[in-house]
């Protein structure tokens, strides 16, 4: 069982992100369960969404307290919430930012994780470039696929194409593709 | 003198003709021609509400309901379904094990007749029975108070329902309590004739017909058991239209008003002739016709025979509120233009 927790703000497509991720896993022939932090949050308010991916049938309905991966769509949230709560020692961290962990004062949190498990992605910039709106979720999913290798990128792009209409879908896939490639290049560079 | 004996279609035709039956006064009204003739004069009227019901002697609502539904039955060739709100009409017509209705009839709740009727109309659409029409009916309580929200929703969606409100100005079924249709100064069980302001308060009033007009529905009308021909005309016209329609009928209640059982129609007549109960028609948000006052009477002629207003006539000097009630009537007369000349009945 692999559990993902996505943090963001209302309107950034946090819930959609979790949903697309679950669909991607579904296409990979896995079982997946995506659900929001059920609330009546309005635009801008902090939002959490969850996604479980497993080869067995998923029965549990509890929220994800100990995620294997943390996706942070909005770095400003570090100031308001303890986003790292329950993050597993072997877990992953994907932060949408064009700054460094140090700049965000979360360097040591990143260091607690295995090397290369904590990355930053300028997902908003990428989204602006391809979609023309600050919707980082697709790019972050691309990054997730590249980082965790838990889902195939093809499945991610297929899930995105099912979630959006043609034009928007293409743009989002492009954003996801760029982030995916970016993460892969960094790895090869690091290696 | 244009009137001839109409071609022999119905047996009534060969009845004696009387000049003064022209116009809209007696039920027979035989000089207007066969089709224009009142449903109630017909040997083969449907009696949608038949004998054996348990209404009080001289019940205006029982009368109004038969008038209205028989007219609707004729207009729809019998393809009619009635939905009924809780109230006197429902209770006195269908106590187990007997019903007085001779058309398909459904009672659900006090406040939902309009919505239930909407459902029936929707069913008729999906079941491909466009010929079957729906009437919802209730008292003033079930219409102007507790059923008001459903009524307004039905109006706003313009559902194909004719809603008929039998207005006897109070909750008579539960023992004569005040409703939002109870007139000022009237005594009810919850507005007793005691204290400095005996009877019902002089509020701002609530004209559901005008609220209906504000919904701009295709057809709104007020009617009275004192003018059968007008009432039948309005019901017939309403059934010729699709969409939301509203007719409110003044139906005096001998019990609740404290009047003699034989005065039911007389009181309804005085309500019209005094300007107390304006009779008008509106289509798509505009008032299109009013029933003129034929022989104007002071409001006291209407109030005096009713014990619910008796306290107004106790004192030596006339109660000042009589003047306020008269002012209400005069305001109606001005607002609706209820007076110009006398009707010659021809």
């Amino acid at each position, binding site marked *: 069982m692999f559990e993902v927790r996505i943090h963001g703000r209302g309107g950034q497509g946090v819930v959609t992100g979790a949903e697309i991720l679950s669909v991607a896993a579904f296409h990979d022939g896995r079982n997946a369960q995506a659900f929001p932090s059920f609330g009546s949050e309005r635009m801008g308010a902090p939002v959490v969404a969850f996604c479980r991916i497993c080869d067995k049938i998923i029965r549990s309905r509890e929220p994800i307290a100990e995620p294997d991966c943390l996706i942070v769509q909005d770095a400003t949230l570090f100031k308001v919430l303890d986003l790292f709560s329950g993050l597993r020692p072997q877990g992953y961290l994907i932060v949408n930012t064009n700054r460094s962990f140090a700049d965000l004062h979360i360097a040591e949190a990143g260091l607690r994780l295995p090397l290369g498990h904590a990355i930053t992605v300028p997902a908003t910039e990428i989204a602006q470039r391809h979609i023309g709106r600050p919707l980082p979720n697709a790019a972050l999913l691309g990054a997730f696929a590249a980082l965790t290798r838990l889902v195939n990128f093809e499945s991610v792009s297929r899930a995105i194409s099912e979630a959006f209409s043609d034009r928007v879908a293409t743009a989002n896939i492009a954003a996801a593709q760029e982030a995916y490639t970016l993460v892969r290049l960094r790895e090869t560079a690091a290696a | 003198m244009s009137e001839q004996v109409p071609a022999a279609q119905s047996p009534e035709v060969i009845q004696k003709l009387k000049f003064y039956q022209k116009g809209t006064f007696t039920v027979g009204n035989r000089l207007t021609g066969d089709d224009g003739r009142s449903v109630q004069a017909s040997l083969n009227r449907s009696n949608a509400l038949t004998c054996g019901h348990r209404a009080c002697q001289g019940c205006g609502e029982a009368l109004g309901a038969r008038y209205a539904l028989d007219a609707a039955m004729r207009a729809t060739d019998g393809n009619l379904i009635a939905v009924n709100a809780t109230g006197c009409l429902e209770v006195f*017509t269908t106590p187990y094990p007997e019903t007085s209705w001779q058309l398909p009839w459904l009672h659900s709740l006090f406040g939902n007749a309009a919505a239930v009727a909407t459902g029936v109309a929707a069913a008729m659409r999906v079941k491909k029975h466009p010929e079957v029409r729906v009437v919802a009916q209730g008292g003033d309580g079930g219409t102007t108070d507790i059923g008001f929200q459903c009524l307004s929703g039905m109006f706003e969606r313009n559902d194909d329902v004719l809603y008929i409100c039998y207005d006897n100005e109070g909750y008579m079924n539960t023992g004569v309590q005040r409703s939002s249709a109870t007139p000022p100064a009237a005594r009810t069980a919850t507005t007793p004739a005691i204290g400095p302001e005996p009877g019902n308060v002089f509020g701002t009033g609530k004209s559901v017909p005008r609220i209906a007009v504000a919904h701009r529905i295709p057809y709104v009308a007020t009617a009275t058991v004192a003018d059968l021909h007008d009432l039948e005309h309005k019901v017939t016209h309403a059934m010729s239209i699709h969409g939301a329609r509203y007719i409110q009928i003044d139906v005096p209640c001998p019990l609740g008003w404290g009047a003699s059982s034989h005065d039911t129609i007389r009181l309804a007549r005085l309500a019209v002739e005094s300007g107390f109960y304006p009779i008008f028609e509106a289509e798509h948000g505009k008032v299109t016709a009013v029933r003129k006052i034929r022989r104007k009477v002071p409001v006291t002629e209407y109030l005096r025979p009713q014990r619910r207003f008796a306290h107004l006539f106790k004192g030596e000097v006339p109660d000042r509120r009589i003047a306020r009630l008269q002012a209400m009537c005069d305001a109606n007369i001005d607002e609706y233009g209820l007076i110009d000349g006398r009707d010659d009945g021809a």
Partner: protein
Amino acid sequence: MPKQIEGSRATAEAIALCRPEVICAYPITPQTHIVERLGELVKDGYLANCEFINVESEFAALSVAIGASAAGARAYTATASQGLLFMAEAVYNASGLGLPIVMTLGNRAIGAPINIWNDHSDAMSMRDAGWIQLFAETNQEAVDLHIQSFKLAEELSMPVMVCVDGFILTHAVERVDIPDQAAVDEFLPPYDPIQVLDPKDPISIGAMVGPEAFTEVRYLAHHKQMRALELIPINAGVFKDTFGRDSGGLLRGYRHEDAETLVVAMGSVCGTIKDTIDEMREAGIRIGLVVIVSYRPFPTAALRDMLAAAKDVVVVEKSFAVGLGGQLANDVDTALRNLPDGPNLHSAVAGLGGRPIWRRSLHRLFRQAVAEPWEGTHFLDLNEPVIQREIQRIGKTRRSGPTAESLLRQLGRRGELVAAGEETST
């Protein structure tokens, strides 16, 4: 065909497959996605010959359904929480008139304090209204129960309420197998009413019934529910034959055969409980689960048979009758009544107003039930310190003000209230 799909959309598509003829929609969280999707399906013509009516209240929603059903149309609506309370009068009326309406209830707490999250208080408030009440464990079951419900409702001429946990199921995206139209049509024949408003054969429906016949009318309603106890398993069997899936029925057991401790629960929490049970089984504890699907009619006899052999029975439920305790626990108690040396009954209330139910909390609960059983009702993950402080505060000052707001003040933002649940679990 399997889909990765949101529960509400899956439910809506299943309802569409049942070819409802009149759908009444009024928005209330968390059932909105269901009627939104149905509206879409009607507008885009996928669901043909169906009247989709946007009403002005829940009271009207069920009232319109009542009219449509009495006039011979297959009628559907959905609501939740306050909405169910607002239509309460019509809820009783629909069953009293014997109208086979199907209604989805996106289970949600009842205010005040206003709360949009999941529990079963709303369903419990109408448990005596004469409707059949079925609880879905998963979105797959939600889909399947709706299809079975129309058949059941119309066979008995009695309304059915399908209870689906708000958000937890309605908003969860997971794998659901949506049946194909042909199979559904084979399983569910067109609506053939036992009585209908028809100008060609006029009848009066909804007469006033006095003392001379009212008891009999009520008895017959009860008799219908007793017939449902037989019909529900039969339909589940036919359903399996048609769709090859076990779904619905009155109740089902999980690892219960040799269990010394049996948990009884309804709805989505059963999934979490099953995981917990597996973990405890690995630790050698003989524990199992009984999932109640049909809460009304309540499968008293069948439940008794399943529980009779256990030492301990722990009832976990998402609602409780203030001043008494858990309703489900009471009903289970009824089932165990007069059982010679029957199991000990332990009542626990959990997940009120969306409070998460953690596996760890359940572990603790089940062990405690056996080791150190409590008196009365146990409130899972109750924040004791907060309660103590508030009770003291109320005791001190006359004008203590509203408790809910005071609690929030103590806990700071609501997000931390959720966190509080997490703390206790970690």
